[in-house]
């Protein structure tokens, strides 16, 4: 379904076009003031006028998001490995994970700043904290869904949990993991922005914070557009990678 076929592309353009057109016309029609909802044309104009500023900020934020995402994925995978090798750990790990997940970022951010300083490190950690959970939950679900017929073969071989994990459970869970990555990708960007929101010296999050506190909504939404574009690119990258890696599913 995800094939980049021409009708799909055309329809995508149509839908996105219609969304933006509706937005533009809605703003015109209701005469919405720019400090409440700016028109897309205005946002794009702002974007192109400040292209270099946004480019730099995007680089910073993207860097934090990607590194944080990788850390988050690693964390999720490590936890799942633990649970898979010692299934008794599952409930305990999940409880602690949900505890971490339930703590609002604003409560952890200062702690991280105190421990890790004002640099990018606390931002990266925040992104990791935000993104590990979908990976953990999805991969665990995939692991637990593994086709019983395959498990039986390995049990008849008296294979170790490690062998089972590596040769059966992980490949079987890959589509689940990719689903998680498609969720975590855009989430990582949002996380990086939220982390920068207070107390960063650069990045889209800071730009957005400044824009919002100045009620400069075109600038805020210009950053949103970049975020969306980056999110869509990350998503497309995941879809593409999945197609190559999980080749046995997309026959």
């Amino acid at each position, binding site marked *: 379904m995800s094939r980049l076929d021409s009708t799909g592309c055309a329809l995508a353009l149509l839908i996105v076009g219609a969304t933006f057109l509706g937005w533009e016309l809605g703003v015109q029609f209701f005469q919405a003031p720019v400090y409440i909802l700016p028109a897309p044309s205005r946002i794009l104009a702002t974007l192109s006028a400040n292209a270099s500023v946004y480019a730099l900020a995007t680089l910073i934020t993207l860097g934090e998001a990607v590194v944080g995402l990788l850390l988050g994925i690693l964390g999720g995978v490590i936890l799942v490995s633990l649970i898979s090798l010692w299934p008794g750990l599952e409930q305990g790990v999940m409880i602690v994970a949900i505890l971490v997940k339930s703590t609002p970022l604003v409560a952890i951010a200062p702690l991280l700043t105190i421990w890790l300083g004002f640099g990018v490190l606390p931002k990266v950690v925040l992104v990791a904290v935000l993104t590990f959970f979908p990976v953990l939950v999805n991969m665990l679900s995939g692991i637990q869904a593994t*086709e019983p*017929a*395959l498990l*039986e*073969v*390995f*049990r*008849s*071989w*008296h*294979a170790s949990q490690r*062998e089972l994990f590596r*040769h*059966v459970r992980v*490949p079987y869970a890959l589509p689940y993991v990719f689903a998680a990555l498609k969720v975590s990708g855009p989430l990582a960007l949002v996380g990086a922005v939220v982390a920068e929101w207070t107390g960063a010296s650069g990045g889209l999050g800071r730009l957005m914070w400044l824009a919002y506190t100045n009620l400069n909504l075109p600038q805020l939404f210009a950053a949103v557009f970049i975020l969306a574009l980056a999110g869509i690119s990350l998503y497309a990258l995941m879809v593409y990678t999945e197609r190559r890696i999980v*080749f*046995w599913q997309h*026959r």
Partner: protein
Amino acid sequence: MTITIEGLSHTFTTPTGRVPALRDVSLQIRQAEFVAILGPSGCGKSTLLRLLANLLRPMAGHIALDGLTPAQAAATKRIGWMAQHPALLPWYTVRDNIALAQRINPQPQRAVPAVDDLLALVGLSDFASAYPFTLSGGMQQRAGLARTLALGADVWLMDEPFAALDELTRESLTLELLRLWQTFRPTVLWVTHHIQETVRLADRVVVMSRRPGHVHTEKAIGLPRPRDDTAPDFQPLVRELRVALAAQS
């Protein structure tokens, strides 16, 4: 390995009720004996093999493989089980599927068949690097057979290994298997629906009754090997087994 089964019973609990699959099955199988199992569909043949392969725990009765419980025997990595549906790993090629069996079941003490020889034996040399989902049903089954043979196990628990194969492939594989059996001398439990095949292959044929399955008839096949379908004693044995089986329907 010798296999002793005594008073073995098994009942499944399903969302819709209890299904007794085996009742009071007793069997003695000698070291390197080739035992074929015949029985109507659903009589518990696969369940019996699963119990021996330690994939199910018996609910009553007793199993000993060289004196070991199925769990202990499984730990020795000398049990080879072939499932009724070939459960190949779709993310590995045919060769890797077979090689993996050897990697997870290393047999440092013994010679095991080489992967390439097995591929040739089952006629899949050309498909060594194909992925399972590009194989036909019969080819998948042969790949599964090769994977089980690759274990070099002391006990072969084979669940309808030739069901998806044509007569000729079946016959040629029969010969190859007998050769392997005579080289490695494993104890074989061979579930099949093909009466002729049992007479061609087995030292003894066990006919199971309808569900809940138990041993209805045991018939030693005294014919000398290599056997020939056209030998005078062959067809009478086939007919005799058919009659025994028919008593179950």
